[in-house]
């Protein structure tokens, strides 16, 4: 079991959750309130939904030895685009047309953003970190252009269902994540696309020589990453019924990369672990929620976060484990011999 890549991330996640139990005995309780389930665990899933989505897209990009720094800005762009459509005054709550127009435009815009990244990387040959850095900077500008630099408030009820509604007593955003995760798992594990991505990630030139169209595979993963970020942006803006071009999705790219790395995917590309990424994102979100609920002073938040992430990364490293655990073992051996 310890051999499994998922073992250490899951262990850390469980430890963080148990730590909460120590401070708040009711942490694991899930109760029915106003017709839907509430509780800290549900909150973590609900709050973590955008991060999980974005991290799924990021995993595939990282698997091709690339990186997508623009996801945070795409989040802001998608939220702004959707809010722009549904924040017009005088929309009737009965009509669902504005809702679907907003969703289509927002997802369309994020797909175009992903395509822009993909074309720069695959066709022009710009290094991924540079190519996506461009949109990381420009995207926030575009978002502010759409919102006119103001925070748009949405009064159109149906839109708030996406990020704040409930289905079968659970937050709707959880179902969106499940659907996208299932899609990604199906495409990468049941079709050959996953293998192609890993192949391009380990050696694009060799993949091309064996007849793979590596350019299109690169293009596809960036489009998928943009698509995931777009949905994440819609969930975020719908949850607070507002779009903030300045702050929505700020630093999400870093959290997403962290989630991917905690999940055991190497930044060198070639191999990826979607479930690991999901666990990684959940660790980050549980940590955030824990910091809020056990009352850690805001000044030290980031330090606490950094320490936990460092511990996870160290535990992931076989060399570190061998040194520390191996050291303990040999010491134990010596002690045993000494006694004998």
């Amino acid at each position, binding site marked *: 079991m310890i051999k499994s890549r998922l073992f250490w991330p899951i262990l850390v996640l469980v430890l963080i959750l148990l730590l909460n139990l120590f401070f708040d005995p009711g942490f694991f309780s899930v109760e029915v309130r*106003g017709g839907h389930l509430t509780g800290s665990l549900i*909150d973590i899933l609900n709050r973590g939904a955008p991060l999980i989505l974005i991290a799924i897209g990021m995993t595939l990009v990282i698997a091709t030895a690339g990186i997508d720094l623009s996801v945070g800005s795409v989040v802001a762009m998608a939220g702004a685009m959707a809010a722009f459509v549904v924040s017009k005054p005088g929309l009737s709550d009965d009509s669902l047309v504005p809702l679907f127009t907003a969703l289509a435009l927002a997802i369309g815009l994020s797909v175009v953003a992903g395509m822009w990244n993909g074309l*720069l990387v695959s066709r022009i040959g710009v290094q991924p970190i540079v190519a996506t850095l461009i949109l990381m900077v420009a995207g926030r500008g575009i978002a502010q*252009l759409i919102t006119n*630099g103001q925070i748009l408030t949405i009064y159109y009820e149906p839109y708030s269902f996406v990020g*704040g509604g409930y289905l079968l007593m659970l937050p709707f955003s959880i179902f969106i994540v499940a659907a996208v995760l299932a899609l990604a798992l199906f495409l990468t594990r049941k079709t050959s696309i996953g293998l192609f991505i890993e192949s391009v990630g380990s050696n694009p030139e060799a993949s091309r020589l064996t007849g793979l169209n590596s350019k299109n595979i690169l293009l596809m993963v960036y489009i998928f990453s943009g698509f995931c970020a777009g949905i994440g942006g819609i969930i975020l803006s719908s949850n607070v*019924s507002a779009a903030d071009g300045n702050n929505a999705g700020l630093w999400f790219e870093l959290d997403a990369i962290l989630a991917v790395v905690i999940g055991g995917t190497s930044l060198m590309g070639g191999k990826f672990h979607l479930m690991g990424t999901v666990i990684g994102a959940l660790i980050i979100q549980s940590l955030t929620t824990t910091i809020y609920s056990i009352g850690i002073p*805001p000044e030290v938040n980031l330090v606490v976060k950094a320490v936990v992430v460092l511990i996870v990364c160290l535990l992931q490293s076989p060399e570190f484990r061998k040194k520390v655990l191996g050291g303990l073992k040999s010491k134990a051996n010596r002690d045993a011999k000494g006694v004998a």
Partner: protein
Amino acid sequence: MKKLFSSKVLVLLMMLLLLVLAACGGESEKSSGENGGSDSTETDSGGSDSSGDKGGDSEKLVIGFSQVGAESEWRTANTKSMKAAIEDAGHELKFSDAQQKQENQIKAIRSFIAQKVDAIVFSPVVETGFETVLQEAKDAGIPVFLSDRAVDIEDDSLWATFLGSDFVEEGRKAARWMVEEYKDEEGPINIVELQGTVGSAPAIDRKEGFEEVISEYPEKFKIIKSQTGEFTRSKGKEVMEAFLKSDGENIDVLYSHNDDMAIGAIQAIEEYGLKPAEDIKIIGVDAVRGAFEAMADGKMNVTVECNPLTGPQMVELIEAHLAGEKIEKRVSVEEGIYTMDQAEELLPTRKY
């Protein structure tokens, strides 16, 4: 050959897209130019007949105003108020938008000095680096009035006065309202606090002022949780959700360092199944339009004003100073506090 062609087409397409985006950017630049002129100063008020003989007519002053930029609704309201107040008082305004750049601001102040204005008003982009240009203004005998933001300069003879919000006082006002609200009730009253961005002046000062007042009642008022919501709606909501999960019904009061976080927290409270403003009293700061809407809906109790409409007060100070009256080096903006029952009536009059 065919491949080469297709990649050329692609490059062309991308450049086209770039052009479209650039066109968008150009448009916004143009509109900001219309609002205030980029770095050249422009004369905003009519009546050029007296511009030549400054001092000939003692009533009419020429005032140069260098604004930080137009980064928020608050700032835009501030600019509008200043322009309107100066023009309504019959003075002439020379306005310059620094677009967040100190360089532009120094240029603007130099050009004000060259034009021999009667007074310079400016909101410094940053705190330091204005010594030289302020010394030039002093040598030219032009008084400088700081608006909204202070400068970090030891020699305070370089400016006439600093008119800005007193964030500590805002915190005190919020606390005093709460003390008054609960004067008939026995404690303990449990408070949760949503702080602003860690380390920012409004967050530090609003916390300090609030704690200063409630420390007089150590038995009655207790801050049980305090966490940063980074001044944003979504973080405010997320943090409040966690507070509710850990303390739930024990929370009596929410003190939020700005209205946006309070609005996010209201959503969290409603989703948790409690009634905002009834089960949990909600205090915000800023008095933005959204807060008035929430109060009119009966979901928020009170908001302490952080007033951007400082124009009229600034004009009074300038007139008083030029008339030879002595004015304080630090003047606080006149700010009110608005409660739920005033909200409906005041909502249509809110300018920002």
